[in-house]
């Protein structure tokens, strides 16, 4: 056999293993990424969906965050505008987790309609900059200026 052929066989072997690892780990660890509306539709179509781990991207309902004083448990509500549901999370919340911030919660939807999150990522809209429109209107300086009638 020519070395070139041998190399190609070896290469195919390596890539095959890599491809197998990729395919199998996507099957095992891939989770649905849904909006609250999509989640509600899925739950309706198939109630056993509650047993699958999922991620939901939504926005925290302002004023809904309630921190358990006795521990690291957070209860809050998330929404995408049309559907809203409660979330319970145990763990350390990221610094950027606050009212109206976009979050990704990972976990399971309970049969009682409460989402039990084991993972909480908060995307801070102001992490680098705010949404282009109204950007500066949220600056404390702007608010101060507006308050004193300068704007």
């Amino acid at each position, binding site marked *: 056999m020519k070395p070139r052929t041998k190399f190609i066989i070896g*290469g195919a072997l390596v890539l095959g293993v890599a491809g197998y690892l990729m395919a199998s780990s996507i099957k*095992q660890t891939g989770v649905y990424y849904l909006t609250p509306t999509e989640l509600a539709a899925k739950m309706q179509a198939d109630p056993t969906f509650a047993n699958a781990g999922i991620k939901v991207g939504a926005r925290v309902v302002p004023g809904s965050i309630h*921190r358990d004083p006795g521990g690291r448990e957070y209860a809050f509500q998330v929404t995408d505008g049309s559907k809203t549901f409660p979330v319970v999370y145990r763990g350390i919340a990221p610094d950027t*987790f606050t009212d109206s911030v976009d979050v*990704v919660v990972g976990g399971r939807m309970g049969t009682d309609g409460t989402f039990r999150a084991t993972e909480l990522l908060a995307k801070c809209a102001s992490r*680098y900059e705010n949404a282009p429109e109204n950007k500066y209107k949220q600056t404390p300086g702007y608010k101060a*200026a507006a308050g004193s009638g300068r704007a």
Partner: protein
Amino acid sequence: MILIGELSLWVALLMAVWSMTASYAGGALRRDDLTASGVRGLYATFVMVVLASAGLWTALLSRDFSVEYVASHISANMPNFYIFTAFWSGQAGSLLFWALILSMYGTIAIATSRARNRELVPWATGTLAAILVFFIATDCFKANPFTRLDFLPADGRGMNPQLQNPGMAFHPPNLYLGYVATAIPFAFAVAALFTRRLDAEWLAVVRRWALVSWFFLTIGIVLGMWWAYVELGWGGYWAWDPVENSSFLPWLTTTAFLHSIMIQEKRGMLRKWNVVLVVVSFLLSIFGTFITRSGVIESVHSFAQSPVGTWFGTFFFLATGLTIYLVGTRLRDLEARAELESMVSREAAFLYNNLLLVGIAFAVLWGTVFPILSEWWNGNKITVGPPFFNAVNIPLGLLLLALTGVGPLIAWRRASVDNLKRQFLTPAILGLAVAAALLVAGMRALAPIVTYALCGFVAGTIGQEFYKGVRARQAIHNESIFKGFIHLVGRNRRRYGGYIVHAGVIMLFAGFAGLAFKSEHDITLSTGQAFEVRDPYGRQWRFVSQGVSTSQRPDRVVQAVGLETFRDGKRLGLIAGEKRQYLDSQGNELFNPSTEPGIRSSAKLDTYVVLAGVRSSDVAEMRITFNPLVTWVWTGGYLMMIGGLIVMWPQAERRRAQAGYAAVLPPRPEAAELAGV
């Protein structure tokens, strides 16, 4: 100055358009006067972009809050250092920063290679100018940093406290320096494809700039990891987030290229492959910027969504289409000059190295874009997380680590049994010894044992190389060990610099494997209360809470908990975890409180304390994490930097020019090579 800056940006756009047009026309019509004008246009673009940047820096440092970019990125009481870095903390500024680096690189690259690569210059200049046109136009039309507000705010919004950290000050510019440097090899590759001059001449320029890119990407990525670790408070440094991945991708392909180019230099093989790697590295840099800027993929890093994403997408597809066409029509010019002779040879080792690096890049890319792909495929957005990346990359990474030891030492063309025995017997014994020692010490986890055994093996090969080299110099030149070592590295920087980079890679892997033994403890302590726990090495730790304190600084209020720390009864000192609330000059709160972990580092492990919350005046909730071998990761990063610098040092260039396209030359005798003569 701000006005001059704004005008300069528009002039820069015109200059770049001219440079692109004149250079391409000069190349197509073979008119040297047009090409010369195009090159001058590129230089002029650089000057104009420098002026525009000076304008933005002036606006920032003079705290001119009538400029929207200034008002939304800084506040008056911030230190000047972070105001200076605010230049690239927003979208408009970072696009300008791209243009600044690209025009600077382009000017240097064209000015230094103009005489040697006459044929390539018009096409390379034109391509660089075309990329500049894209960046400057995006900046002018879609994200202009000089846009004015119609009122004057009293103060700006300030900078996110998480960005006010030296790591974050240097991480983005280094990544940019790395990303942008991929444009130079790309431009020269396009030029070589256009002109069908695909021999050795373009490779010298390309390799130098690929090294520059690799060097800065390495620094940028390691700094980013360090920043995430010391600033974000989750106790880790890499989360396989799409934005992290997109900086890793061009690093992988550039690393692959820096290896495969050696095969082309010595044996004339892999010519198509190398062109593809150069092009792909650039496309991945653009793709990375596209991902971070467009918000098409969910990431905690996601920046404001903006029309810039569409521009980047369009540019990405145009550039991809152009290069596919160019490579496709020039396949015959890229035929290999030699064949693989044996599977047990350096060529084969390097081929597998490339296959693995590109395989890892593909897996990372696949995992990153999988949510989009799955949504196209069946309408379900499916995300994959760290388990996916670890499952694929740990085995591939370990194979790669093994090749790190094999590749540099195995003979070219066909390795004899004697060669294998001479080079690999001692290192293999060392690797097995490491595995045996760990088993005796009680370690049972498979992946870490394999990792450390391979680390031992590779360290053995590198140590052996240095030992043989120094001894050869001692024998020939009668030098001391220290002098022999310095001369050895100095006379053959490319080779021994490479070994130093590899030594850094070993340390990185050792540090990564340490993650397997990480342990976390969530605790609540009131003042005076103690928490006792064993670390992964079995040592007894005792943390005594000193209570919660609050202090006021000019720009922030700090809440801290101090832990008096003892290890096996010995007092180690205080570790403090903090929460900081940043304020603007009027005393208004900026952003959310930010967590500042307290970290005690040692070679064996980091003790990482995060203040999770304060329940009452003296009861604090904390998370204590034992992170083994984290300092090894940073040290490995330093070593890679040092090795990279040694490899890049100019003398190495001259040697390569002599070596040339050596497919026909017999391999040099080993003794002479070892002595670096």
